[in-house]
C-alpha cells in the first residue's frame, strides 16, 4: 500500500536524546491522519523533520514517490508540503487579507514570481479574490481589513489555517491547531478541519483525544520517538499496547 508520504527508519537526536528513534509512517492521499502521543514523545520534532526545518540523522522521507530526505524547507513547500505552527505565526502588522494574499502569491506563478517590482500587488485582482475566498472559508471574511495583531487568538489560528490552505498543499501539516483555544473556538476549528475531509490530505498533531477520534480517518501513536500503532481510530483505541503505553486510564 503506497502513501503520499512515506517515512522509513527516521532518526534524529539532540545531544544524547533520540527525539525520533526509527519512525515508520505512511500518510495516504486524501486522508485525515492524526498523530498523537504523550508529551515529549517527539511529535513536534517529527513535524520539523517532515517540513524540512530539521534534517534527519538517518532514515528516508518519500513524498509522492520522490525522495525528499535531503531537500530544504523551501523545496518541500514547492513540492506541496505546507505546515501550520503550534505557536501562531502570522504577520502581525499586515491585514488578514494581506496575510492570505502573501500565501497565495507564494504559490501562484500565473502572474509571474515575487520578483515583480513595478505593478502594484493590489492590482492583481484574481489573487485578492482568491485570498478573500480562503478567508471566507475559515469564517474571517468580515475581518479581512483588520491587522492580524488586532484579532483574537482563535481568529489568528483560523487565519493560520487559511494561509496554509492558500498555498494549496498536497499535504497539510497541522501542528496543534487548537492550542490555547477555548472550547467554543476549538469546536469552530474542529468543524473547519472536518470540512477539509475528502479534499485535502492532512497530517494533524493534536492533544484533544475527543476531536482526534471524531475527525481522523486513521491515527498513529508516537511513543518515545517511535510509532507504536497506526490504524483506524476505533482499532487504535482498542489496541492493548497503546492503552498500556500511552492512554492508560485517560480514556473512559
Amino acid at each position, binding site marked *: 500500500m503506497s502513501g503520499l508520504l512515506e517515512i522509513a527508519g527516521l532518526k534524529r537526536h539532540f545531544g544524547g536524546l533520540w527525539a525520533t528513534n526509527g519512525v515508520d509512517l505512511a500518510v495516504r492521499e486524501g486522508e485525515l491522519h492524526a498523530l498523537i502521543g504523550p508529551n515529549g514523545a517527539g511529535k513536534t520534532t517529527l513535524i520539523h523533520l517532515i*517540513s524540512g526545518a530539521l534534517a534527519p540523522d538517518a532514515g528516508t522521507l518519500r513524498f509522492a514517490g520522490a525522495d525528499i530526505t535531503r531537500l530544504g524547507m523551501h523545496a518541500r513547500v514547492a513540492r506541496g508540503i*505546507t*505546515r501550520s505552527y503550534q505557536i501562531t505565526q502570522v504577520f502581525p502588522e499586515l491585514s488578514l487579507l494581506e496575510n492570505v494574499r*502573501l500565501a497565495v502569491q507564494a504559490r501562484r506563478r500565473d*502572474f509571474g514570481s*515575487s520578483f515583480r517590482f513595478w505593478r*502594484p*500587488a493590489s492590482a492583481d485582482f484574481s489573487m485578492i479574490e482568491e485570498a478573500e475566498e480562503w478567508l471566507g472559508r475559515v469564517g474571517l471574511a468580515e475581518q479581512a481589513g483588520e491587522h492580524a495583531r488586532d484579532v483574537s487568538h482563535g481568529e489568528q489560528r483560523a487565519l493560520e489555517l487559511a494561509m496554509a490552505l492558500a498555498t494549496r498543499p498536497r499535504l497539510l501539516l497541522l501542528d496543534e491547531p487548537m492550542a490555547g483555544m477555548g472550547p467554543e473556538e476549538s469546536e469552530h476549528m474542529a468543524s473547519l478541519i472536518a470540512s477539509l475531509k475528502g479534499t485535502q490530505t492532512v497530517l494533524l498533531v493534536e492533544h484533544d483525544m475527543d476531536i482526534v477520534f471524531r475527525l481522523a480517518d486513521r491515527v498513529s501513536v508516537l511513543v518515545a520517538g517511535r510509532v507504536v500503532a497506526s490504524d483506524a481510530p476505533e482499532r487504535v483505541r482498542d489496541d492493548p499496547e497503546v492503552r498500556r503505553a500511552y492512554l492508560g486510564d485517560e480514556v473512559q
Partner: protein
Amino acid sequence: MKDRRHALLELGLLAAAALLPFALQAIGEDYYIGFAARLAIFALAATSLNFVVGHGGMVAFGHAAFFGGGAYVVALLMQAGVVSAWLAWPAAVAAAALAALLIGALSLRTKGVYFIMITLAFAQMIYYSVISLQFAGGDDGLPLDARSSLAPFDLGNDRALYWVALALLAASLHALRRVAASRYGRALAGIRQNEARMEALGYPVFRLKLVCFVIGAALAGLAGALLANQNGLASPGQLYWTQSGMLLVMVILGGVGKRYGGVLGAIALLGLEEALGLVTGHSHFYVGLALLAVALFAPRGLAGLLERKA
C-alpha cells in the same frame, strides 16, 4: 480623498524645493544652493539605506562602501578620461550593485548583530583597499577636475546640480514607493515581520533579501556619483565606517521604514549641524543631545512624530 490630498502636498513640496535656488539667490545666499544639493544627495543615500533597513529588515552597517564607492567610480573614470555622466553614473550604479551582490551573498548567511558586523567588515576592507591604491589617491582621495558632463544639461553651476539631484531623489522615492507596493515589496514586508514563516510559505527568502540589498546599494552608488560631483572630491572618509554610521543615524532619526524617513533624517541632521554651526562652535554637542532625545522619546523617528500630528 486623503491620498489625493497627500499627492497634492507632495507635488507642492517638490515644486517649492525646485524653486528654492531662486529664493536663495534673491536673498544673496548662493552658497546654500550647493548645500541644498548636498542635502538632496544625502537624502537619496539615506533613502537607499532605509530601503535595506526599513523594508528588507537588514541592519547594514557598511552602506558607505556603496555610497563612497559610487563617488570613487566617477572620480576614477574621470581620471581615465570618461567625463560623460551618461556613462560614469550608470557605471557607479553597476559597480555598487555588483559589490553588493558579492558582499550580500556572503553576509546574508549571518543574522542580527553578526550581520551588522560582517557588513561593517566588508566595508572596512574596501576602505583600506582604496587608501592603499596609488591611482585612487590614497589617503588624500581623488579630486575631480570638473563635473561630469550630463549633456544636454550643464552641471557646471550648483543650481543645475541641485535640480538633477532633486529630480533623481524624487524619481527614486516614487520608484521605491511602487516597489514597496509590488508583489516583491509585499514579500519583503512579510520577510521583515516573520522570516521563518515566509520560508515556510515557500518564498526564496535569501534571494529576495539579496535583491533588496543590491537595490539599496545601487541607489547609494548613484548618490555617491552625485556626491563626487557636488564635492569635487572622492575621499576615503566617504568610505569609512563613520559615514555608514552617519547614514544609519539619518535613517533611524528620520524613521525606519517610513517613506520619507531617509529624507527627513538627512535634512534634520545636516540642517541642524549647519544651523547650530552658525551660532556655536560646539554644534555637535547639541546635535548629540537632539539625537539622544529622538532615540529616547521618538521611537519611530521624525516621520513617526509627523504622522502622529497629521
